[in-house]
């Protein structure tokens, strides 16, 4: 006899189901069977999974179900006025000033008035707002949307697919290289607490080479629950530098997922810089689909107060001769908490895999915490895989050396923190970007060195 499953749901969990029911007919692509099919499947997956909690291994240190009790309503685009001064305040002056092709997304809405759409078009990059892409999806978009690196076990991703309303869709043409970065700037607006659910889809065709910078910031919204997903497909021999600045407001929840698929001989260099939000979860799922490719993923957290930031990376080696490098540097002050989970799966056929992970926490106070969990699942026998993790305080001997050269203690400490972070920044190839992030670190530290 079949009994109906009676599932207990928290108020927060139920709120998302209600939100979907109310919004579904008005969501972009509601009349497109492909898009509405994706959404229905996703909300069903969410209903089955519920919000992730600490008894789910991948969410052991970030109990979203207990943190997400109040759910904010979906944002609706309202044409907020945004000037250069706003960008500078939201992103910090160094990042806002970077020369780039800008795509500015305010409250999920791709703003043509603030974006370099025609310049990108003539450089060989096709750009659509997500909403337009969903209303009438072109065939190339249908091939990738929700399919770059699909997962059915991730409730945050499922919610994003069900509720995505804004963001951008990009197709970087075959062999296209750009003289500047593409800078996707996502800002939430002002006013009452709200949820914003965005999806960026990027297809990098064969042989293209681009720096894609994503910045997330706040124009002063009182509370923000952000769920942002980027799907990125790298074609054969494509090379993408994928960089993120997370500077959401101090009360914000920042849930972000990158889904990446690498073709043959592709190169993926990712870097994430997290400063903002009360709670941040950066998920990166990367999958090697063809041989000879490499992924280099690094990140920096700078946290204070009671901030919580979690970076969880899952890299799947399905084919031979691919390499992964991961490096995370967490600077943790006050009662902040940094989490790194890095899992690398090497499938039976993935011989000659070469992977290394390193996570390092620098604790500036007795009450800060760093949790690091590297995991390797290796099913092939001819591989090189290593991982390491350290957690410690500022080295007193190094501090003394600097002080003995006349550098006052606070400045010496800042220099050492900068140096700790610097090892991760060195992985950013582009000098201008590297310096912008170094400047952002200095700004956080309240000092400047040259």
């Amino acid at each position: 006899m079949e009994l109906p499953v009676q599932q207990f749901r928290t108020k927060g969990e139920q709120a998302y189901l209600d939100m979907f029911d109310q919004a579904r007919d008005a969501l972009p692509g509601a009349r497109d069977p492909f898009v509405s099919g994706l959404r229905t499947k996703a909300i069903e997956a969410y209903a089955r999974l519920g919000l992730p909690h600490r008894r789910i291994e991948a969410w052991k240190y970030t109990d979203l179900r207990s943190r997400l009790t109040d759910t904010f309503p979906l944002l609706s685009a309202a044409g907020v006025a945004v000037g250069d001064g706003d960008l500078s305040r939201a992103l910090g002056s160094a990042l806002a000033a970077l020369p780039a092709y800008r795509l500015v997304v305010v409250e999920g809405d791709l703003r043509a008035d603030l974006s370099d759409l025609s310049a990108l078009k003539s450089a060989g990059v096709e750009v659509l707002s997500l909403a337009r892409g969903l209303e009438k999806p072109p065939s190339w978009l249908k091939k990738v949307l929700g399919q770059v690196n699909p997962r059915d076990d991730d409730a945050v991703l499922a919610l994003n697919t069900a509720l995505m309303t804004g963001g951008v869709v990009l197709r970087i043409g075959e062999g296209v290289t750009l003289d500047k970065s593409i800078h996707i700037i996502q800002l939430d607006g002002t006013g009452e607490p709200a949820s914003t659910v965005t999806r960026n889809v990027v297809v990098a065709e064969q042989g293209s080479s681009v720096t894609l910078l994503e910045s997330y910031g706040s124009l002063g919204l009182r509370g923000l629950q952000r769920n942002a997903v980027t799907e990125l497909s790298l074609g054969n021999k494509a090379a993408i530098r994928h960089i993120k600045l997370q500077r959401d407001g101090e009360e914000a929840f920042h849930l972000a997922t990158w889904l990446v698929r690498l073709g043959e001989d592709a190169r993926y260099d990712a870097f994430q810089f997290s400063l903002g939000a009360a709670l941040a979860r950066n998920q990166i799922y990367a999958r090697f689909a063809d041989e000879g490719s490499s992924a280099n993923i690094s990140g920096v957290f700078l946290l204070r107060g009671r901030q919580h930031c979690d970076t969880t990376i899952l890299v799947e080696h399905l084919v031979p001769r691919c390499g992964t490098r991961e490096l995370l540097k967490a600077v943790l002050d006050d009662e902040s908490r940094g989490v790194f989970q890095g899992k690398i799966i090497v499938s039976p056929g993935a011989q000659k895999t070469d992977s290394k992970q390193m996570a390092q926490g620098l604790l500036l106070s007795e009450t800060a915490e760093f949790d690091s969990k590297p995991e390797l699942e290796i099913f092939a026998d001819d591989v090189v895989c290593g991982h390491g993790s350290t957690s410690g305080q500022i080295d007193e001997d190094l501090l003394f050396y600097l002080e003995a050269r006349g550098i006052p203690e606070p400045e010496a400490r800042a220099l050492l923190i900068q140096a700790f972070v610097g090892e991760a920044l060195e992985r950013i190839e582009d000098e201008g970007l590297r310096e912008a992030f170094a400047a952002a670190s200095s700004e956080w530290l309240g000092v400047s060195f040259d």
Partner: protein
Amino acid sequence: MIEINNLHVNVEGREILKGLDLALPQGEVHAIMGPNGSGKSTLAYVLAGKGEYEVTAGTVTWKGRDLLAMNPSERAVSGVFLAFQYPMEIPGVATMTFLRTAVNAVRKARGDAELSTPDFLRFVRNKAKLLKIDPEMLKRPLNVGFSGGEKKRNEILQMALLEPALCVMDETDSGLDIDAVRIVAEGVNALRAADRAMLVITHYQRLLNYIVPDRVHVLSDGRVARSGGPELALELEESGYADFGGDAARDEAASGAAA
């Protein structure tokens, strides 16, 4: 210029300096010699203000001030410089950034204007040339991957840039071949000046062939056991430290491990 009276210092609860007296007048170069464990490096660290060295008795008067009441960076800007026996490696800090931060911190504290980038580069290049330091080396992270000789030359470069009034050199010759000793010694001799005092700590007489001291003090069991002119160093070369609670043969074997 600096006067040390009855200095007692504990390290991890153990007394290392046991009533050390020493006076170093302006413009003079004094050598501190002694067997391993006699307290030579402890003296160097205490003068620079290292944290875990606990002064239990005694005074150090520096330019009329109480040196022991000053924190390490205050000592440095007031003109005390310690050339480390084991200079620290700091990955992620470019040597040039470090030098510039240090020079400007010291200039600022002394009431001088900070140097502009071109002026600073010129200043460093000139000093580096004297010490045969390749400017490329200064672009690398501080002391990371430097040879023993490069590290020591980098210490002397810092000394030249910061223009201290008191130079304390802790076994600057250790681990160097004879050519490197000569380069380092030339760098030091170029800094000898009427308004500058130097304390050269060394286990071996060898360095003192190149940096000829005005006085030599032999440390033994945390005190100055004997003082004399430069000839005292030569005498020790002959007889070893056997008369000072050390054993020449043992010291030879253990010299690399001197604390």
